[in-house]
């Protein structure tokens, strides 16, 4: 109940912020954009339920549709759908969610070329699609995922997120095929080391992943 209250409070603040802004033609446009984004990013930081991710996807989608030239809202809308795609227990929903995520991310990519964060998110989305039908999809999608991860690492060698995404993929890959716990742990260590040195370039730049990475490492250590 306490948690609910906190969420409610945060959402309340968010909606307040959103509705308090006036139209996009006002001179404080960028300021308004940044504050709306920051508010939603705060919510995103603690979001855990599907309902909140849907709400956030909608919020970012609205900002994206109104701004049109900023890549970040497209990126975060895509990220929300990507999270839903990787975490939905209903495999038949994955393709639809991943397609929606890709649609947003493609728009982000059109606005911001050669961005490591975008490439990393593409890898995450594509890897979610493999989950639908691993045996048949790995061959084509697996290559694409690997391609995006390589690109993400090249575009920004300090970005921890491609390492985290790769660690998750490796964890789910059989040992005999180059995956497994040990490989995942190595990658995770690379990710965590990068997280500790990572300086986001702006208040809107992606920062997600440190806590999940730490939790993931705990889990790996606990299971030996």
């Amino acid at each position, binding site marked *: 109940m306490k948690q*609910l209250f906190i*969420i*409610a409070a945060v*959402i*309340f603040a968010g*909606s*307040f912020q*959103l*509705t*308090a*802004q*006036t*139209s*996009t033609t006002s001179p404080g446009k960028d300021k*308004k954009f940044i504050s*709306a984004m920051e508010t939603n990013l705060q919510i995103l930081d603690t979001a855990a339920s599907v*309902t909140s991710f*849907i*709400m956030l*996807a*909608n*919020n970012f*989608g*609205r*900002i994206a*549709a*109104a701004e049109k030239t900023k890549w970040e809202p497209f990126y975060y809308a895509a990220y929300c759908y990507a999270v839903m795609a990787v975490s939905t227990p209903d*495999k*038949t929903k994955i*393709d*639809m*969610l991943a397609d*929606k995520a890709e649609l947003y991310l493609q728009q982000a990519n059109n606005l911001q070329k050669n961005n490591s964060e975008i490439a990393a998110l593409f890898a995450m989305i594509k*890897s979610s699609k*493999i*989950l639908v*039908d*691993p*045996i*048949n*999809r*790995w*061959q*084509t*999608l*697996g*290559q*694409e*995922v*690997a*391609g995006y991860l390589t690109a993400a690492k090249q575009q920004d060698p300090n970005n921890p997120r491609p390492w985290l995404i790769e660690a998750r*993929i*490796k964890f*789910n*890959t*059989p040992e*005999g*095929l*180059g*995956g497994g716990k040990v490989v995942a742990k190595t990658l995770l260590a690379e990710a965590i080391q990068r997280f500790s040195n990572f300086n986001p370039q702006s208040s809107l730049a992606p920062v997600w992943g440190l806590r999940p990475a730490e939790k993931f490492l705990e889990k790996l250590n606990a299971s030996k």
Partner: protein
Amino acid sequence: MYQKLVLIMVLGCGLYSLKAQQVNITGTVRDHKKEPLAGASISIRNSYYGTTSADDGSFAFTIADTGRQVIVVTMMGWQLFEQELFIGRDNIVVNPSLKEEITELKAVTLSAGSFEAGDKKRTTVLKSIDIVTTAGQQADIVAALKTLPGAQQVGETEGLFVRGGTGAETKVFIDGMMVANPFYSNVPDISQRGRFSPLLFKGTIFSSGGYSAQYGQGLSSALVLESLDLPTRSESNWIISSAQLSVTGQQLNKAKTGSIGGGIAYSNLAPYFGIVKQKYHYTKAPEAINAEFHGRRKTNNGILKFYGYANSNTIGFNRPGLEMENGQEQFRLTNKNVYTNMTYTGRLNDKWKLYAGASVSYNKDNIQRHIITKDKFNNYFLPRIANITGQTRIMLTRNLAAISKLNIGAEWQQVTDKINAKDSIPFITIRDQYIAAFAEAEIYITSKFAGRLGTRAEYSSLLNEAGVSPRISLAYKLTDKSQVSAAYGIFYQKPETNYLFRNSNLEFTKATHYILNYQYVAGGQTLRLELFHKSYDKLISFPLNDPSELSNNGTGYAKGVEFFWRDNKTFKRLDYWISYSWLDTKRQYLDYPAKVQPGFAATHTASIVVKKFVEAISTYFSMTYTYASGRPYYNPNRPVTGFMKDRTIDFHTMGFQFNYLTQIGKAYTVLIFNMSNVLGNRQVYTYRFSATKNENGSFRSEAITPMAKRFFFIGAYVSIGNDRRKQVID
């Protein structure tokens, strides 16, 4: 919980509105059935105003901008809702009603007669990988499709024999273009492989009837292959096996907009035949050299693809000659084949898509057949047969609402066939200009109900005949998981070339299909039931003893029931499918004295395919068991009334394959072992008889069987420059 949340939000907004001039917008989002929709995004266009609908579909938000505004409601899986609002001083209530979005993922599929193999759609029956990993004949597209209902287990001739149709009644298309010679050239009583590697294709549609008006000239079936798009990275592949050595490579440009690739393959069965004894004495074990080239270029709006293939192969063997005691028949074939195919597919604008293709192919068979008797008398037949086919094809696709579309297209083929045989057949050349035009609309009225209505008009200058064939396919979704589908169509096909050489004054042969299909697809399980009826008209026929008197007087029918069940859910990491076909077919054609079940048709056919991936040892196991009831054959030692009354023994075969995935250095490697007829069942496809009676007044015979009891294949597939093996089981 959510309602509370909304309440707080509404309260918050309400409080704030005391300060500024604000208008409340409230309402409930519902679907066409008035059910509330939760999670919809409600917004005012070009602004940040908006919210998300609650569990009961309700929403509320405030807006401070007055004047003309557009409220936009979006939700995944539903069509966009827009409504103009005038924001004044009063609060506004809007109750958006969303229409379901028709997407390929959800919509009913036109499944009657059609099996799709690909990785995209939910309803595909086979996956691309199945074609490579189904035990039986190694990596042959047709071999995998033979495990589906409708296909016969014909082992003495290449091709797909579908629903009482001959192998020639199945036409193969690559990227929309007909392939004149999709299989290695015919060799008496030994089935030949398909020419093209399954690794070239991303999708396969196998139609066992009622196929689209886009395709023609196959009385029974169409096999539609779609080639791969750009590779995801540069790589080189090596195949080292008991039958073949092959090297292929492909290079992707930096911008990932184009690729070129090529390869060379050499196959020779001599070492294998040296170890595994074959029934006939091979004077030349099958040997082939194969070169391939492909180029793909992505443009802003589309993709241009080129594929070129050249092959030269030889096979020669001696077998018992039946005309004399200890007689001998010698056979040798040299074949040269070139196939090229270039296509462009792309968007012209938002509404129109263009497809254009051109293809040239060349095939030459050099056959030497000698029948040698005791007194060294040599009865020979030395035909040289050539085929040159050039074709162009164009198709425009107009996108209609949602996923509905209209296809309009035309194709033109120029076919030249030549034959001559020393001392028996003079030079004969026949030329045909084949022109076809088609229009077909695929309409999704709702997600639940769709129809495909098309017509194809065809003209052959050689036959001087035109045919118009309507094709209809309808599908209706009963529940989320099940649907019914029906198809009807008329199909024309030119008589086979060997008849046209004798007499080009023939007409199109004709088939009419009626198909009824039920399909159930749910989380890893697929069930299909299909009923069909097919009638044949104007088949080629000639009197028993006079093959020169060709006419179009042949008729026939085929009807049957087919069952297919695939399940990869019940048993963990185990995937299996079962198919069964019951076929009732009779025809009177060629020299048949009566309407009988033809020699290539079995009444009962069944297959079970089981696949299992064992993670611990990275190995993919596959087992195929196939059964076919005995097929009719004519024993000329019986009176004519006994025509096709004999039956071969039932056919059983069990194939086994394993694929071991590993890494050797940086190379992704699959080790493959494949074995046919594991149980060693005796297999008889049919019988052949001598043309003349022997000294005892009877015709000599030989059972047509596989060349060896079992076929083994071991090989390694090595891929360097990529590491796609890693994502096998994500």
